């Protein structure tokens, strides 16, 4: 282990439309862009597995809408403590992005709050954008009316990027930080560390810090040592 601790020189992950690698998800990207920028565009419901770009699209939509002067709110439901209060508190925005919708499944009060928010936003001419890991009928929501409301949104199934595309994203993100991930390193990584893009980008964050502490390039031996220490090396 390197005893020297590095400074926390961080690069906020830039979740913007122009950094979204659409691949097979081009239709979803177009619909979310329309929702962010054009009043009256159909509401969008995104579903897909972890690492398929749900959060990225939601944050990008908020950023783009905010840039043209619309009032926006992003609500990561899974990480909020008092979800009913949070949902009631966001009414009145022009674009509302609700992430991790599955988190409120079975929470009666939160489901009712969201149902009210839906109706109120519809009445006020605002826009809602949802993301979850499954379609509305499979989320385990207790309130049938909420299920049908959500079902009325335009739905898109986000598909994770394939290996080649994830490699590209990882390379681009690394280059933006000024570090290089060459093909040997990527081959090694993808052969042993099969993870979704979110986890790979988290790994990149940690590798960046570790290489800063060690003042070394990211090579296969460095990566191997890092993963072994992190206890995450896969056999």
């Amino acid at each position: 282990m390197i005893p020297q601790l590095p400074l926390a020189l961080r690069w906020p992950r830039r979740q913007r439309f122009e950094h979204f690698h659409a691949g097979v998800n081009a239709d979803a990207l177009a619909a979310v862009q329309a929702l962010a920028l054009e009043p009256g565009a159909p509401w969008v419901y995104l579903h897909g597995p972890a690492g398929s770009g749900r959060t990225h699209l939601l944050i990008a939509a908020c950023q783009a809408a905010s840039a043209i002067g619309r009032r926006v709110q992003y609500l990561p439901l899974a990480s909020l403590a008092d979800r009913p209060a949070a949902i009631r508190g966001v009414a009145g925005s022009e674009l509302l992005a609700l992430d991790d919708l599955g988190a409120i499944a079975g929470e009666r009060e939160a489901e009712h709050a969201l149902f009210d928010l839906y109706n109120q936003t519809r009445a006020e001419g605002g826009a809602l954008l949802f993301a979850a890991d499954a379609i509305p009928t499979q989320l385990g929501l207790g309130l049938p009316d909420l299920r049908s409301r959500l079902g009325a949104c335009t739905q898109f199934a986000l598909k994770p990027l394939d290996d080649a595309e994830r490699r590209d994203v990882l390379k681009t993100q690394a280059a933006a930080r000024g570090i290089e991930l060459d093909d040997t390193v990527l081959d090694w990584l993808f052969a042993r560390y099969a993870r979704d893009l979110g986890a790979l980008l988290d790994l990149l964050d940690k590798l960046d810090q570790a290489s800063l502490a060690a003042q070394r390039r990211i090579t296969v031996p460095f990566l191997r040592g890092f993963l072994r220490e992190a206890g995450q090396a896969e056999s």
Partner: protein
Amino acid sequence: MQFSIQREALLKPLQQVVGVVERRQTLPVLANLLVKVADGKLTLTGTDLEVEMVASTPAEQLADGETTIPARKLFDIVRALPDGARIDLKLNGERAALNAGRSRFTLATLPSSEFPTIEEIELVEKVSLPEEVLRDLMESTAFAMANQDVRYYLNGMLLDLQEHSLRCVATDGHRLALKETQLDSQVSTRRQIIIPRKGVNELVGLLETGDGQVELEFGRNHLRVRRGDVVFTSKLIDGRFPDYEAVIPLGADKQANVDREVLRGALQRAAILSNEKYRGVKLEFSPSRLRIMAHNPEQEEAVEEVEAETPVSDLSVGFNVGYLLDALAALHGEKVRLNLRDAQSSCLVQENDNDQSRHVIMPLRL
């Protein structure tokens, strides 16, 4: 082209520009200096395509013209001539003839049209400050620049210009050095530029103590520094410097004030017995006292105690002693203040009565 000049009058501008010329070049003409006589003066230019230095001086018996002459050879000849020698240099066709007393040299030249110079820098902002201040700002931070880090933007120094202040910032990822000064003028838009390591070193070498002013010109891709006789221009590193303000600790509420020289001496002695690779020393704080300990793989041990104005107790943090010594050398005051939180968080070192110069150092796990 022709001029006549006293040896010493030529030696100074030669010294200023010759440092820029690399020992190995990609283009033959980069081994040469551009030598130009025009507007009643002699001008010398050296470049490596990244950093350009232009120095001018009055001379006599001038005949306008320009050529390029091997930099190192010209410098070595002028330096080796006796004090007070008068040097006459004249371009004869493709050769330059240098005569001084009973010495005669004929040097090869390359046409000046092949010599790359940086003319326009697309000026976006301009500030003026005392030369001595700029020198102090850069000297107090340059040591913290990274050297050959893959993150190219760390191999340089950030100049951060905003409102009434100019800050120099450098970091290698383990520690960060910052020094700021107030400007007489105000800038409307914040400007952040990164000067490459070589440019920083050349500029520090050029700047002198004295109360003259220098002009800093921020260009779209260049920084230009003008001082009466010399114009320095450096390309910038095209990249974004990390958000350095985010690593300056705010929650470091445990403070200790220590005599700077006493602490420096104690650290220098303890360093002798620290591990050669990581140079770790342990700082143990207890009320009114700071204990410094070091040991190495041979089980040799050093213990130093210094007085400290501090209420902190039961705090023990490891550091690379080199980073602490660099910071203490860059500070000027009699007393320094160490601001800490715990053994995993960064330490802020500054003078105890002002924060113009700040040093953030990350601990070592001990």
